């Protein structure tokens, strides 16, 4: 493929040289510039880049500027006196550290659980079975729903007196537990619901990767007498590494910004004690307390954390020629 591109490139330059007639005066340089692929393609990628760039990168820059002010309450921020005081305040704020701890727990447990459950689902479905497509559709269904919708379902599932979860534990003589009210249980309960919603996503990613593994490898492993479990562990799972990496990136980045579900489950900006994460803390400081500058400092911190995940990922993808 690369060779083909290189070949076509030489074809194209030849053609250009011919039309230019070999003259190198100013006008034809300008003409060549006008004919260049860069300029001809600019009307296509330019407008989307400007719109997206302003809203994404322009807003991030503006957000950084805001985080250096002391803007709060109503009115416009004062950009004349800039400083890092909000970042200092963050370091000294114990609730930031609690939110950070919860964010890390959510991020790690949620990501690992989704990767594991998704792998089980994918392995179960990675064979010829009746209604295979129906099962896949069912497992992916929660992912197509809004967090505001699924939060309503889970509030009911976790209901102390009438919820299905407590009924289930009741079968074993346990409970009832106050899943969404007990600080020790609430984060786990939220993670469980989010894994329910996201494991179908990891399943789809794995399935695509499994389908691209040649059948010969399955058969070779069979012939060697490997059992199903061993076969997957030794032969198949190692080949899923690229899928695992890209799914991990998506899951981690989601965990960093998860807000909708927590807002809807707790009916507002304040999650129950024990489940406040940086993403909810940021939204609360801004849109509930009007501490805009402080809130944008937390927002920028979340951006930097995301960048720490995105940058290495994109770099390796670029090195492998996947971009």
């Amino acid at each position: 493929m690369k060779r083909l591109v290189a070949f076509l490139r030489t074809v194209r330059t030849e053609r250009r040289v011919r039309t230019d007639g070999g003259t190198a005066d100013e006008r034809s340089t300008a003409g060549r510039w006008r004919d260049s692929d860069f300029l001809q393609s600019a009307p296509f990628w330019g407008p989307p880049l400007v719109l997206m760039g302003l809203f994404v990168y322009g807003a991030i820059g503006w957000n950084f500027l805001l985080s250096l002010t002391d803007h709060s309450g109503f009115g416009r921020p004062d950009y004349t006196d800039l400083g890092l005081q909000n970042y200092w305040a963050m370091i000294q704020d114990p609730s930031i550290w609690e939110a950070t701890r919860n964010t890390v727990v959510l991020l790690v447990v949620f990501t690992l659980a989704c990767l594991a459950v998704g792998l089980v689902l994918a392995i179960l479905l990675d064979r010829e079975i009746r209604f295979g497509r129906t099962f896949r559709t069912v497992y992916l269904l929660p992912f197509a729903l809004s967090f505001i919708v699924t939060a309503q379902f889970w509030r009911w599932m976790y209901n102390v007196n009438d919820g299905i979860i407590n009924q289930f534990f009741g079968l074993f003589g346990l409970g009832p537990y106050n899943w969404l009210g007990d600080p020790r249980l609430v984060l786990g309960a939220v993670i469980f619901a989010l894994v329910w919603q996201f494991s179908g996503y990891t399943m789809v990613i794995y399935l695509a990767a499994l389908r691209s593994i040649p059948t010969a490898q399955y058969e070779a492993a069979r012939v060697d007498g490997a059992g199903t479990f061993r076969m997957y562990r030794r032969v198949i799972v190692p080949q899923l590494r690229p899928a695992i990496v890209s799914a991990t990136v998506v899951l981690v980045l989601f965990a960093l910004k998860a807000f909708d579900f927590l807002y809807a489950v707790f009916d507002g900006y304040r999650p129950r004690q024990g489940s406040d994460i940086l993403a909810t803390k940021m939204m609360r400081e801004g849109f509930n307390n009007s501490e805009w500058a402080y809130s944008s400092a937390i927002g920028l911190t979340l951006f930097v954390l995301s960048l720490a995940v995105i940058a290495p990922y994109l770099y390796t993808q670029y090195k492998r020629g996947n971009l």
Partner: protein
Amino acid sequence: MTDETVSAGRTVADERLSDRFDLTRVGLYAALVGLTIFYLIPVQSGFVTSIKTSEALINTQPFAPPGPDGATVEKWAFAFDALSRGLVNSLVFTVPATILCAVLGSMAAYGLTLVDWRGQVAVFVLFIAGIFIPYQSVVIPLTQFWSQYAMLDHRLGLVLSSHQATLLELIITHTAYGIPICTMLFRSQYKTMSWEMIEAARLDGASVSRIYRRIVLPLSIPMFAVVFIFQFTQIWNEFLFSLTLIGSVNDPAASTTLILSGLGEALEGVDYPLRMAGALITALPTLIVYLLFADKFAEGVRV
């Protein structure tokens, strides 16, 4: 294409295996059915709860349907009344934003993939990174931009009512933030497109935009379907922009997710049957799109 050959090849192997491992097969189906129950029970319980009277709510199991005298559509009617305004608003900003970011994403992907120039990967990286940025790091400037600088309701006051101006803000915002993922989806397809065909057209003297209109666009139709379906559900389900740009549940521009988030709030606690009915009504458009086009949705997720 390769998918089918691979799975067809595997069928033969599996059929041979299935004779041998009948018990394993039974276990497999048991696991699959058990998982189906796990994934559906929150939705199922939500549905049976939504049609229960308050008496049936107390007297029946949360997953059991109500008896004939314990069933009512009252909550659905009430929820629909409360949400209908939001359903219309959501549709009004979701559909144009979906179309716009699909078109812009396709254009960007074409300019960055099928026209070859130096540095395009660098520009593409800017698009990709845009997929992942947390909205928390842009949402405050965004609300300030719309409310204090752009002020569409003020500037376009002669043409648009204030609630239409809010919907326009949402269309532009959702389009801008949807462009990155759409660009990536289209690029994944364009990378596999035949260079020979495009080069041949160029040698025949076709311009960059003519190639787009005559060759690339017709071949993109399947990907447009994927992007439409994926992006429609994403924008419809979105909440953070609704919450911050619309501001209040009582705003005439409130989206359906925003109204649902505060539906039937009362001092006595949450009216669960009402909430469940509201959740299902809000989910209905995305559920229909998802169930009709599950494969296309999965394709959008996968890339």
